[in-house]
């Protein structure tokens, strides 16, 4: 199937009358191309073209009235990074949140998948509930309550009231532990995770499914053999389960990063939208908005690249 063809042979497959055209391979190739033709057309028109246009727009000043462009070089990027007061800050905050959340999501979904793969009473019900977030955390739903302007105005008051009246267990614990002075930086990260646990569980529906499918594809005879050889459950977890599932770590990691970067309640995206449509007392500037999107996309891509590199180096593939 995968014999290498020369360029001219490949072209000949599509040209009637040539020698290659009449071969079986050429026929299949033409049908295959026909199947993905919609995708090719769509990709060129609705992805490549807007991408180029958006790249172009990020280097131009755009007048929204007549869609006229004026070349301004990299000044849009400079504006986004140096002048705009919020963009930098939001970007850095989101990256920090992402790093913590992605790692937590991976660990969490793996643990949950391992548990859901065991046999116990109520397993089906647990599965149903754990995949509910796939539905409940999509689209507009996760951010809607926090992106409410009126609510945002009042959050400070709300928080102060809550601190005065209610007892916040994790905050109290955090105070206690930070007083004792043990590695406060580490504790900060851990408490950040604990406070975000709802978001993490809500974001890990698909990841659980992927891990679970990996777990189910492991042959039970492996565990049987390990058991006969005197492996404890803990050992066979690290020697069998983990290595067998680890290739999926990469898939899940990439998925989590992208999912996080594209979420609706993401502050950077909110900011870009505000700049695009001129909401929240922001002047509408499509040029700057495009520049911001490209910076954001670049950062996302860099993170996907780095994590791919780390995981492929750290995890051996057992294919």
């Amino acid at each position, binding site marked *: 199937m995968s014999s290498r*063809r020369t360029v001219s042979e*490949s072209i000949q*497959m599509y040209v009637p009358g040539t020698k290659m055209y009449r071969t079986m*391979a050429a026929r*299949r*190739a033409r*049908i*295959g191309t026909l*199947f*993905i033709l*919609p*995708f090719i*057309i*769509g*990709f060129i028109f*609705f*992805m490549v073209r*807007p*991408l180029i*246009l*958006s790249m172009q727009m990020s280097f131009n000043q755009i007048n929204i009235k007549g*869609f006229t462009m004026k070349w301004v070089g990299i000044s849009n990027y400079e504006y986004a990074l140096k002048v705009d007061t919020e963009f930098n800050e939001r970007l850095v905050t989101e990256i920090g949140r992402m790093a913590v959340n992605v790692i937590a999501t991976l660990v969490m979904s793996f643990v949950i998948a391992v*548990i859901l793969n065991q046999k116990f009473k*109520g397993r089906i019900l*647990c*599965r*149903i509930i*754990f*995949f*509910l977030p*796939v*539905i*409940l955390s*999509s*689209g*507009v*739903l996760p951010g*809607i*309550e926090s*992106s*409410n*302007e*009126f*609510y945002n105005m009042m959050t400070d008051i*709300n928080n102060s009231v809550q601190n005065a009246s209610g007892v916040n267990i994790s905050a109290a614990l955090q105070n206690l532990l930070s007083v004792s002075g043990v590695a406060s930086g580490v504790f900060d990260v851990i408490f950040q995770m604990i406070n975000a*646990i*709802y978001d993490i569980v809500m974001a890990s529906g698909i990841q659980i*499914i*992927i891990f*679970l*499918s990996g777990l*189910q594809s492991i042959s039970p005879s492996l565990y049987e053999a390990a058991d006969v050889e005197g492996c404890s459950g803990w050992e066979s977890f690290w020697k069998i389960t983990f290595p067998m599932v680890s290739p*999926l770590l990469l898939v899940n990691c*990439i998925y989590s990063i992208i999912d996080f970067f594209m979420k*609706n309640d993401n502050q950077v995206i909110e900011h870009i*939208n505000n700049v695009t449509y001129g909401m929240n007392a922001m002047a509408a500037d499509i040029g700057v*908005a*495009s520049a911001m999107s490209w910076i*954001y*996309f670049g950062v996302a891509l860099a993170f996907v690249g780095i994590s791919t590199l780390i995981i492929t180096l750290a995890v051996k593939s057992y294919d």
Partner: protein
Amino acid sequence: MTKERTTQNHFWERNRRSGGYLLKRRSKQIAISVIRAVLMFGLCFMIIQPLITRFARSLMEEKDLYDSTVVLLPRHATLVNYKYVADLTGFPGTMITTLWISLVVSVCQVVAATLASYGFARFDFPLKKFWFACVVMLIIIPPQTISPALYMTFAQFDFFGIITAIRGGPINLRSNILPYLMMCLTCMGLKNGLFIYMLRQYFKSIPVSLEEAAYVDGCGTFHTFIQIMLPDAMPIIASCFLFSFVWQWTDLFYARNFLTGYQTYAVRMSTMASAMGKYFSASETTQVIVDPHRTMQLISIAVLICCVPLIILYCFTQRTFVESLAMTGSKE
């Protein structure tokens, strides 16, 4: 009673003979299952709890919201909040609009994705690797990157100057569903890359010999596809459809960019807070400031109404959902 005692004695007898190993193992098992039960219950409760709270709070009158002794059970139960939310979101109308848009869009998406994924799974053609890399790119590129450009493309839609030649100028397609359907039919809809990827994984797992047999029996390529491959792939196609439907149902991004002519539920929900001031004021011209607790309550109700159809759908289809997904993921 005596039987129980004998089994108990038997257990201790066995334990003694095994040198304490049996007791250790049994207690370990019990400990693990207790920890597991606590963990599972806690996490499940965390997922369910917001729904319960929302429902409970949705029945409260305004004064209950400020009563700190009222937590879950409303003291002054009322259903009038639902009426407010229905008015604010244009309930039956917007829901129906959302329903048909979601249906049409997900059908288009799934058809396009099925065709493309079958092409990727079974045929060998020039530049196949390159195009598949494009599918992966499609998953990775955030649609926000191209949204301003798409906005401009559709605001001044012109297909190679053909439309200008006919009508004398570009047309604005932003308020029409057509451009979005066009995108869906060409695999560029909401998370379409993911569907292609999932379906391709599944098609690859179907034995090639099935098709070869059909081909030997004189079945053409398209015939094979429709008669043999499609029925086999129905579960995964169904779950792609469900995903697509659910995501479209709650989508705000595409709805705000391309479907400005249609009032979908998600869009109305997102603008609900600002519409409230006018709605609750006595006259047409003035606005009252609705306090945040009240606003939050009404938005929660809207979220609840939005979720209910999805949850019902999910309860009926979760088997297909989970099982078909479990079939694809691992194979690569």
